[in-house]
């Protein structure tokens, strides 16, 4: 396709969803003012949520959701066989997301509670990279469309795709927000990867870490900060466990 500056090839694009709310895919249809330009970069081969076209000759697959049933594993393996670039799209795909809260309970108890014990197949929740190799991760609950646009442009132009290495605190300070720790709240902003424009803390609610750990975080110092301020350990655990994104940083 031609534009005044570049000649580029549209991405042969497909979008799939597993155990999730489909809110990340919905973001692809948001930012309506730039929507025509955004889809101008994509040759949509499969995107069940918005189109009845279905073709299996895609190169880039966006995969939303976590994995919690055996048919999902099979579908995911088939996507991996076809896709040159498999993108874990959103927090559920990258970390398991809120769905992982289910894993605190035995499967039989979950089924008994919700389906009156009728047989329903469900497995402990897993993230996409537990099953297949992931080429690129775009975290966020939901993903930030602005960041997705930037990444898609990088994929089209073949340039390096990067995520911010620094924490949400940096973006929060840019917005001149009052620090939530100073208001007596535990906030995961100091340890969570930026890229969301600090949207939650700007709305005066604490960061729950949906984008996962930033690069080179000092977790012991973060724990010390919570301790020094005399904030609740139970609250900290609830926040760290919310998206399962801090699995690698157990809280004592």
């Amino acid at each position, binding site marked *: 396709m031609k534009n005044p500056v570049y000649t580029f090839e549209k991405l042969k694009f497909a979008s799939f*969803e*597993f*155990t*999730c*709310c*489909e*809110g*990340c*895919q*919905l*973001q692809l*249809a*948001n930012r*309506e*003012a730039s*929507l*025509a330009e955004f*889809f101008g970069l994509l040759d*949509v081969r499969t*995107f*069940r*949520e*918005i*189109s*009845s*076209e*279905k073709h299996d000759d895609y190169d880039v697959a966006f995969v939303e959701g976590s994995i*919690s*049933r055996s048919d*999902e594993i099979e579908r995911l393996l088939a996507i991996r066989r076809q896709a040159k670039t498999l993108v874990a799209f959103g927090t559920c795909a990258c970390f398991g*997301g*809120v*769905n992982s*809260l*289910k894993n605190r*309970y035995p499967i039989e*108890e*979950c089924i008994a*509670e*919700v*389906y*009156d014990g*009728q047989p*329903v197949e*469900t497995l402990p929740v897993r993230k996409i990279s537990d099953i297949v190799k992931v080429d690129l991760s775009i975290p966020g*609950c*939901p993903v930030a469309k602005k960041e997705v646009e930037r990444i898609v442009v990088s994929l089209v132009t073949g340039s390096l795709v990067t995520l911010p290495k620094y924490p949400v605190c940096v973006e929060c300070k840019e917005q001149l927000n009052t620090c939530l720790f100073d208001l007596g709240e535990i906030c995961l902003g100091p340890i969570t990867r930026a890229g969301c424009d600090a*949207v*939650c803390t*700007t*709305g*005066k*609610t604490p960061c*729950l870490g949906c984008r996962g750990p930033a690069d080179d975080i000092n977790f012991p110092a973060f724990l010390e900060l919570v301790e020094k301020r005399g904030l609740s350990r139970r*609250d900290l655990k*609830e*926040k760290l466990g*919310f998206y399962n994104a801090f699995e690698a940083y157990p809280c004592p």
Partner: protein
Amino acid sequence: MKRDCSIDIRHLTRVEGHGNIRITVSGGKLLEAGWAVVETPRFFEVMVKGMSAERVPFLTSRICGICSISHALASIRALERAMLIAPPPAAETTRLLAMHGETLQSHALHLFFLAAPDFAGTSGVLPLLESQPELVRAGLGLKELGNEISAVTTGRCTHPVSLVVGGLSKVPDKIRLQQLLDMIGERKSALGIACDFFGTLDIPRFERETEFISLHNGATYPFIGGDLLSTDGVRKEENDYLPMTNEYVAEFSTSKFTRCSRESSAAGALARFNNNSGFLHPEAKKAAEKLGLRPICHNPFMCNIAQLVECVHILYDAETLIQKLLDTDLSDIRTPFAPKAGIATGAVEAPRGILYHHMETDEEGKVVKADCIIPTTQNNANIHNDLQALARQALQEGKSDRNIEKLAEMLVRSYDPCISCSVH
């Protein structure tokens, strides 16, 4: 004519989530017609157990990527009623405006992205953008407005940030509220374009007498809280949601089914309209009249039209709500609360119909038991029954297999099912 026909649609497209349609005809006789939800269950009622009340709306909003504001507000309402917390009036006005934003976004997504391609004969909205750019731009303009209303009132258009138990965590910015007013003024022409397009469509002629259930407060078009009312005359208080739903497990579906007075019932824009059309904004009443929508309408395909009529109501009502917020001192937006044990239901009208969250808390304000009944769950049995009646009628009319398949798909889409939501 003795005919055979086998329609087997796996993972219906242009709907949220995964559902299958099956119609089998042998020797001219309808053997089966049905709707099965095959979405993977997530077990939110389990996940929410042990969570602190203040965190719960941030979890339950993740039940749905399209109607996250409704889920957050249903949980908040249940928890506020359980713990006897009264949110300040400015917070209530802002919440209603947030619901308007979400409903407009959701209806515009459904009408233009999911439903319109069927009527225009395209596979999706992208080809439609090429063949009818003015129409799609109108739809995008309304969807963008809905998202912007949600963002100004809740901090973000999907998965709200500032809706909290007790009120709001942040005041909506008055400059942005003023900009919303200007935007609404501009986008009224988009409503006109939408009404012109949907007014000329050949809506399939199909009726099956149905019990419609929605909220009803006897004073305004309902969105947050109120009595539960059915067109068969059943009326219950909000906490008394169980006799309105009678949820049960159907073995072929991961989403449950419900019933009230009959074998099935319907929720959604058409149910709201059928029970509350007198409370619509005068401009919305005019639009309904022009589009041929009159209560009680038993044609499920008219749900599309009811959604459009609600879009008209929302644009005009949002103007009033924004003006009210602009004229108010917004310093009191959050009621502090002490956690306590309690039990209550919060019912809201999500875009696809009445949504119940029932919550029980302990003395520390942690949730010990939750029950969520989703609009699409309440529509599943009705979709199933409609499909059988529709297949029978289409066979009698001698419609081709391809036509029956298309009608069946359009019927399910008319309900605007939110399937992953229904299998929360």
